[in-house]
């Protein structure tokens, strides 16, 4: 065989997708990261694990999540638009797919204490939820700014029995919460498992989280076949903070080049406004949270504080899988401003009666940017619901709601 075959998109042994990934962690974290790396695949492959995982996804989370044909949106945009309803999961977002998987891993590694970072609070709530379910101690780090703008989720975490610790360094958002969680893990290396909420961090986190979220595209294949006669759509659209809902929606299509993958980032107040989180445009190669990827930084390598109205997209990096997909052209990145996202949230609400999370609203705004053929099948990953964002939405009612 001399012919060059297209390289399948997958992680290698050292945790790289192409040139992105790896595990750049201090020695203090090395044993924990290696323990996870050496065991996660065999734990996931174990039939006992799978039986529990599948049962919880079905009966506790409520999977499969519906694939809904959005008739009015389809008419408006002139394409066949389907919504993957991750907002209907227990706790209201895709995040719980991953926390169920990771808590079962933590149990099998004999861990007693769980830590997590959270931006929008959805991952924090999903972590606090599985900790209540499994009777484990739970500490969630959250930027002080995010604690204010996502108050309902802070209250939910507290009710669920988690301790919410404010991160007060830097811009007091997701990046800083992640730093604090990593430092906690360094200080508690033996009894604690760190449930990372996105496809970021040192290997094996990006791949492990992607595999737990891959249930999204696994179901999509079956549901699309049933509803359209083909398991492949033309385009999949998902918002990208760290990139976990997008990774899950893309996963089983990564090696199907005919399926266009669209990654929607937060442009904040505008890509070049100095208040943005559009990492694929503003980012350069570097290391953030233990992974070689694209990130927003100064020429001196200092990480730049990002900005987005959406706490879950307010992150200066993207997962290494997405850095690889975007830099090789497998996925296309679109940046959406705060205002465009707010407008799209109101539009979706009035067209379909679904209030999306602010993160998810960015994915819907991309529908205004892309051009479609009438027969194109589009899937928008509806990553979460907007209950947590009502205060922000109502604050902009005059501009977008009337």
């Amino acid at each position, binding site marked *: 065989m001399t012919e060059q075959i297209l390289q399948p998109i997958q992680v290698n042994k*050292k945790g790289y997708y192409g040139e992105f990934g*790896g*595990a*750049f*962690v*201090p*020695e*203090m974290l*090395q*044993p924990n990261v290696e323990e996870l790396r050496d065991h996660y695949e065999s734990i996931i492959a174990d039939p006992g694990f799978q039986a529990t995982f599948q049962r919880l996804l079905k009966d506790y989370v409520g999977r499969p999540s519906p694939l809904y044909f959005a008739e009015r949106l389809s008419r408006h945009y002139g394409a066949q638009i389907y919504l993957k309803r991750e907002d209907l999961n227990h706790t209201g977002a895709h995040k719980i797919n991953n926390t169920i998987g990771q808590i079962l891993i933590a149990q099998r590694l004999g861990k007693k204490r769980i830590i997590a970072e959270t931006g929008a609070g959805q991952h924090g709530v999903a972590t606090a939820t599985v900790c209540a379910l499994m009777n484990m101690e739970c500490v969630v780090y959250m930027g002080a700014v995010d604690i204010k703008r996502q108050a309902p989720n802070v209250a939910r975490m507290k009710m669920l029995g988690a301790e919410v610790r404010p991160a007060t*360094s*830097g811009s007091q958002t997701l*990046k800083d919460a992640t*730093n604090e969680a*990593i*430092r906690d893990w*360094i*200080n*508690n*290396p*033996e009894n604690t498992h760190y449930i990372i909420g996105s496809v970021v961090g040192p290997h094996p986190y990006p791949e492990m989280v992607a595999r737990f979220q891959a249930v999204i595209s696994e179901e999509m294949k079956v549901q699309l076949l049933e509803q359209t006669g083909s398991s492949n759509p033309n385009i999949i659209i998902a918002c990208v903070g760290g990139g976990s809902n997008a990774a899950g929606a893309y996963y089983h299509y990564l090696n199907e080049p005919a399926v266009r993958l669209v990654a929607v980032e937060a442009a904040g107040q505008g890509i070049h406004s100095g208040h943005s989180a559009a990492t694929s445009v503003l980012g*350069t*190669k*570097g*290391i*953030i*949270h*233990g992974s070689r990827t694209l990130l927003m*930084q100064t*020429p*001196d*390598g*200092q*990480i730049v504080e990002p900005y987005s109205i959406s706490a879950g997209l307010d992150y200066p990096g993207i997962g290494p899988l997405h850095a690889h997909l975007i830099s090789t052209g497998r996925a296309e990145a679109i940046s959406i401003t705060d205002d465009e996202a707010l407008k799209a949230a109101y539009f979706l609400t009035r067209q379909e009666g679904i209030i999306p999370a602010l993160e998810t609203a960015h994915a819907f705004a991309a529908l205004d940017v892309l051009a479609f053929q009438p027969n194109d099948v589009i899937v928008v990953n509806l990553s979460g619901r907007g209950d947590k964002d009502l205060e922000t939405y109502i604050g902009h009612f005059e501009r977008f709601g009337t």
Partner: protein
Amino acid sequence: MQPNRIVQVIQQKQRNLLNVYFTAGYPALNDTETIILSLEKAGVDLVEVGMPYSDPLADGPTIQQSGQQAIQNGMTLPLLFEQIQSLRRHSSIPLMLMGYYNQVMQYGEAAFIKRCTQVGIDGLILPDLPLDEYETGLKPLVEAANLAIAFLITPQTPLERIHRVDALSQGFIYMVSSASITGTQAGLSESQLAYFEKINALNLKTPRLIGFGIHNRETFATACQYAQGAIVGSAYIRTLEQAADIETATQDFISGLRL
């Protein structure tokens, strides 16, 4: 080739070596020279110059805040290299740069190493650079430049990696005293002493300096019983934070540590 100053001082003294960390650009942007000269005068054996970083994962609040302040003051790597070049006209104390790998990546690995040798840096500590990545990347550059490089071990480091760290480290092994970030202020516990003894018994080829949580005469003395010396960081930053005069404060701080 000139012998490396870090290797040399450790070989000569063998015991009670004192390595002091400070964050470059803190308290004020241009304090670098004053601080290093004061440390040299006070009889410190090695100085670890922290390259301030926005997201120092292995560091506690004291070093984080000093780094934040230093960046705000305007510290950058090009400036730091200039300051060190100018300092070298008056000082021959062994100097290491401590920072995060992203800083080296952005400067450019080859350019960074070249600049280190030009200005008179003797060694590096990059806590988030894993051994594998070092071996396939920076290693030939570091060796060709005859720089020292210290890798970390902790109480959780498995034996196999301790031996790899021993083989790859030049100058000394950075022995982290406990599972923690920098800046803890408790005394050294029984289990930490047991870990020190265990490592001692391995008869590693590379000398060891113990760091993290070394903050007073007692913890320094204990560390020196189990290793060739120790590293003090956060406690010195706290001293600088309150110092009216850097030279006097440094003199007092170091004489308070020394045996």
